């Protein structure tokens, strides 16, 4: 087995992160997703710079879609805030699973603030896949480069979608929205190499739609709690049995 990948400097690690962002399938997916978000923002009459700032500050496409459609549809501010915060609960376990991978001997808490803010589905999936092969002391700049590359694609595509809005025929607009679930489906399946991750993935795929169909409140949170704990329990029992 060869040693971990290392870089001459933090800047080199950051550039390598940007490069792997640009060459990953998520670069296309994020661009497609944010063309859609841009079109949505245009439809509800938000300013293009407002959209760009929301991409940098919120940095979570589902939360932005909720925010734009709730505010644009005239929902009370408190209702929009609650919907956003419910959609964001998933970020908590993601950050808890990611940060221990980033932390090395000389890592300060302040070094982790930026990767924490950058945590989102695409960056999380790619970081979990790529970071284990990289030397510990270069993981933070690599991760920041990766996320910066994605954020650049998202912000730029938001502008493109904003000005393209309403020009796209409905079938193509639908295909654009289909990019997100398809790429997440395959990349999460690729990342699930350990039995517990495969179990959690399968349980989530089944439990999520059932709870949504029954209109269970906080359905995604319950999907995580039930599916994740079940996977953990089954994995523990199998470990005991063998």
């Amino acid at each position, binding site marked *: 087995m060869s040693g971990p990948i290392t870089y001459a400097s933090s800047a080199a690690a950051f550039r390598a992160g940007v490069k792997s962002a640009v060459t990953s399938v998520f670069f296309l997916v994020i661009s497609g997703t944010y063309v859609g978000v841009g079109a949505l923002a245009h439809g509800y009459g938000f300013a293009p710079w407002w959209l760009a700032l929301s991409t940098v500050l919120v940095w979570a496409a589902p939360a932005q879609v909720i*925010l734009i459609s709730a505010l644009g549809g005239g929902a009370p501010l408190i209702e929009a805030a609650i919907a*956003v*915060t419910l959609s964001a609960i998933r970020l908590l376990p993601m950050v808890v*699973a990611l940060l221990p991978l980033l932390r090395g001997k000389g890592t300060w808490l302040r070094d982790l603030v930026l990767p924490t803010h950058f945590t989102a589905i695409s960056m999380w999936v790619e970081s979990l896949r790529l970071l284990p092969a990289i030397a510990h002391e270069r993981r933070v700049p690599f991760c920041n480069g990766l996320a910066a590359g994605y954020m650049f694609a998202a912000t730029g595509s938001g502008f493109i979608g904003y000005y393209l809005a309403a020009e796209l025929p409905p*079938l193509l607009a639908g295909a654009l929205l289909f990019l997100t679930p398809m790429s997440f489906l*395959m990349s999460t399946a690729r990342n699930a190499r350990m039995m517990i991750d495969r179990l959690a993935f399968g349980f989530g795929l089944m439990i*999520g*739609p059932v709870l*949504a169909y029954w209109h269970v409140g906080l359905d*995604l949170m319950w999907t995580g709690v039930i599916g994740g704990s079940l996977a953990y329990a089954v994995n523990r029992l199998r470990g005991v049995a063998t």
Partner: protein
Amino acid sequence: MNAVIAELWPYLVLVMVGFLPNEIWRALGLVLARGLNEDSQMVVLARALATAILAGVIAKLILFSSGALANIPLAVRVTAAVCGFLAFLAVKRTVFAGVVVGEAVLLAGGYFLLH
């Protein structure tokens, strides 16, 4: 003065209603992750929770679509997702192959059913 407030109001709303309610969960994760190492059982469980939520989001996006995707019939969306996943498995777990096949089936199915 009022003009300034009117100008800045959407950005204030963005911070209060969009940024803060979203960021609080990341900040909480930063606090909770202190002292945990990557092999600890809490981290393994957190990854399982996050993976299950993500799978739930994916299934909902396909089955309960919104916007322009909702105009494409459910059967076409599910068929496209299954074909894409099979292609992904067939081509040595290549994400790109799965996405391309899934999108092609969706476009073809949508085109024939809507025309």
